[in-house]
């Protein structure tokens, strides 16, 4: 199973209430994925020359201020801009890759959940309504966001195995389905220098996209590459700094619905997750074709 939701704001009003709508959508997908929940929200760009990390600490009493001090001393002025439960957002005057590498090397107790300039990722085990409360989803404004509710099949129910998975700077992936060639592909990606942290199949798909993008593919080319190189069932939703993209495998067993109004574009596993949005009754609504990449970008609708 698993549930996927995505919301792209076309008006300032929807941007201001993005988290509230995303939370409502996510809760509708509870019975598709009661094991864990997660969101990626694109918001509050880091200033020029700075980057933004979302970090996870299993210890809820982690001293984030001390971390900011360490980062400031070593790689660039750093500030913790928000702490929500087990996750903190840190803006640091350094490149995202450099900051990420430093945290990985020096703070093994923390995990980098996302890196870039606009993305923030939050994910935890548990049901979506509890997740929405714990992370105060209703507070979030942003330009667009993705969410996922997981019913685990391929690997354990852990925070690390929850979606979204970061696939590179400001990129993330959520997945409904299961991949059957992920072990082999994980080995091949490791040889290409792509790191994975779990035994999860979706993380391999995320790593595959990161590798293709690193090798110069466009997002669309990287997604089309999935059709040849991934074996299994999938509906993917990929978040980028400017929007999101949707791809279903050629058999299209896993559901997906798209809907659009003058105010928003939404994607979900099922209509009931879109029905909670304002004006949904009058939305243009369709089902994405198998093996076709659909993408929305900020510029395209401006």
């Amino acid at each position, binding site marked *: 199973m698993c549930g996927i939701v995505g919301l792209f704001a076309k008006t300032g009003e929807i941007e201001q209430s993005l988290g509230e709508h995303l939370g409502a959508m996510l809760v509708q997908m509870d019975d598709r994925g009661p094991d864990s929940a997660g969101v990626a929200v694109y918001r509050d760009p880091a200033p020029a020359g700075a980057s933004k990390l979302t970090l996870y600490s299993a210890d809820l009493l982690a001293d984030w201020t001390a971390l900011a001090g360490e980062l400031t001393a070593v790689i660039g002025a750093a500030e913790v801009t928000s702490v929500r439960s087990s996750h903190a957002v840190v803006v640091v005057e350094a490149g995202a890759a450099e900051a990420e590498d430093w945290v990985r090397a020096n703070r093994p107790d923390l995990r980098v959940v996302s890196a870039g300039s606009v993305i923030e990722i939050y994910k935890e085990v548990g049901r979506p309504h509890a997740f929405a409360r714990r992370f105060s989803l209703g507070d979030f404004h942003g330009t667009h966001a993705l969410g996922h509710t997981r019913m685990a099949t391929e690997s354990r129910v852990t925070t690390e195995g929850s979606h979204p998975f970061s696939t590179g700077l400001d990129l993330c992936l959520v997945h409904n389905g299961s991949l059957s060639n992920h072990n082999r592909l994980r080995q091949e990606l490791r040889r290409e220098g792509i790191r994975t942290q779990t035994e999860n199949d979706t993380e391999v798909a995320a790593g595959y996209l990161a590798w293709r993008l690193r090798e110069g593919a466009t997002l669309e080319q990287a997604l089309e590459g999935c059709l040849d190189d991934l074996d299994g069932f999938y509906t993917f939703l990929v978040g980028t700094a400017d929007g999101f993209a949707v791809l279903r495998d050629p058999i*299209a067993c896993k559901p997906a619905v798209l809907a659009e109004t003058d105010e928003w574009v939404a994607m979900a596993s099922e209509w009931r997750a879109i029905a909670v949005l304002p004006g949904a*009754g009058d939305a243009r609504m369709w*089902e994405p074709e*198998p093996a076709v990449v659909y993408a929305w970008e900020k510029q395209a609708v401006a």
Partner: protein
Amino acid sequence: MTTVGEVTSVEVVDLATTPLRELNQRLHDLAGGAPGPRHWRVLNPNGAHAIACGLDAEIEVEVKGHAGYYCAGMNKLATVRVHGNAGTGVAENMMSGLVVVEGNVSQSAGATGRGGLLVVHGDASARCGISMKGIEIVVRGSVGHMSAFMAQTGCLVVCGDAGDALGDSIYEARLYVRGSVKGLGADCVEKEMREEHVAQVRGLLDRAQIDDADPSEFRRYGSARQLYTFKVDNAGVY
């Protein structure tokens, strides 16, 4: 609803305030001709699953909005009209009756249906009529890939186009498509459209109340009967 000479009331159930199980239980309580309202209207379906599922009574149910999965599944005798779109498996395993969807339907519409008529005024996505066993399906728009997969008996009429692998591993069902067919599945071939077939399409379009498609414009597809199960040498295997 008012009819000449009498006033018939409509039982209105709002799913924003009434649990879905309560609605379905009340509908099930009408099975076997039990007394109760014959005309129902369901408000605020909002994509809920299994709306008006398992009916077994000569009643009419209007669903005012978009339905989720398995709407009107296993239907017997009843007429269910969805004034919106319907999700996966609408009218799946229908036995008899009529299901009409004004909008589009998701995959596996009419799957394994044994009887009755399913009418879709929009498009149907993948696997429409998969494993159909006697149901008749009329789609005013187009159908997605692998429609009528392993279709056994019954009839699928598509006024628009059909996706890839139409009628893969088909048995005796008849497929009629007015537009293009992206590709035929294993053992599915085009067949001669004789007068009896034109008449069959005309009859189904009439019952579906579709009057803007000319029955003579349809082409017929069915089984070439060349797969394993059709070889007489294999008849005693099971």
